């Protein structure tokens, strides 16, 4: 690997931007493709799939064996609301390799006793969220049931382009929330991005089951192409 390529790779990774290094394993020829350049690349379909799956893989193109090494940022999960569901959701998400942070200004909820192994920020969203560097590799869930906390948090998630945004509440609750967010200037396309009621419909009842439904929905959103998603729904 050329030093220039390595430097570029490290810079992209530090900035949490996905890249794929394409290597011809027969002769060591190599190039680095940034995610923003996928569309114009002859290997577009292969690159897009490898990135979505987060999996390094081999492809054969024009008689050449190419190794696609995927460098995707570690996915993050920001949970707003240190509630009962979050106590199940945080460890489940960690076991799926997400970097998890829980935010809740209510110190009775956001206590280390309730969340022994998870970074916990007992601050309002406007203080807690900006330093978290919420980005397109972040899944964002708002589960406090309190508009004073959930609404500003969701507006922040829209701004940062999170790949998944979910909010707890029935259809009725969500309709009211959508109205409030629009009134605060949210775009219709952003409001439509919220998964609510949150989680895949697997008949979840207990907090742990709801956590499974949420992580399943996040996984579908992360891994499946839009067409495959329609087929799975």
């Amino acid at each position, binding site marked *: *690997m050329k030093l220039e390529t*390595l430097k570029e790779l*490290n810079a992209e990774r530090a900035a949490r931007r996905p890249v794929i290094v394409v290597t011809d*394993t027969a002769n060591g020829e190599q190039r680095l493709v940034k995610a923003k350049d996928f569309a114009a690349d002859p290997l577009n379909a292969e690159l897009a799939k490898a990135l979505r799956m987060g*999996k390094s893989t081999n492809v054969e193109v024009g008689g050449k064996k190419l190794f696609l*090494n*995927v460098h995707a*940022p*570690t996915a993050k999960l920001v949970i707003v609301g240190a509630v009962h569901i979050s106590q199940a959701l945080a460890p489940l998400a960690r076991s799926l390799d997400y970097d998890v942070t829980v935010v809740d200004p209510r110190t009775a909820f956001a206590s280390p006793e309730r969340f022994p192994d998870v970074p916990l920020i007992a601050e309002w969203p406007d203080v807690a969220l900006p330093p978290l560097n919420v980005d397109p590799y972040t899944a964002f869930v708002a589960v406090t049931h309190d508009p004073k906390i959930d609404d500003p948090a969701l507006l922040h998630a829209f701004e940062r382009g999170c790949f998944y945004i979910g909010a707890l509440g029935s259809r009725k609750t969500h309709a009211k929330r959508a109205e409030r967010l629009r009134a605060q200037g949210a775009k219709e396309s952003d409001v439509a991005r919220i998964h609510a009621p949150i989680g895949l419909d697997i008949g979840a009842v207990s907090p742990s089951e709801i956590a499974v439904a949420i992580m399943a929905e996040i996984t579908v959103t992360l891994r499946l192409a839009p067409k495959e998603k329609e087929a799975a729904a």
Partner: protein
Amino acid sequence: MLNRDEDILKAAEDWQNAGQGVALATVVETWGSAPRPAGSSLVINDEGTFLGSVSGGCVEGAVVTEALDVISSGQPRMLEFGVADETAWNVGLSCGGTIRVFVEKVG
């Protein structure tokens, strides 16, 4: 696979900047129950110091030896390890998998 290798590739850059010879070994293919997935990497400098892993410990020694050759020759090479391949290499993967490792010089 979610990438936890940040410091390894950064170390490769730092070593290179410090004027050391550096090689990068990357798992490019696995069969059976290989311990580390494709994309896992090991970086080696010309003093034989290495960081990361390609197999969880089973074949790192052999990879480092090959990497030192690659650093001096500059020619990349493909290594294959596994229980089914006793002729080429004396080291095997205790778990029964097979892996191919691409070793290249940095710089």
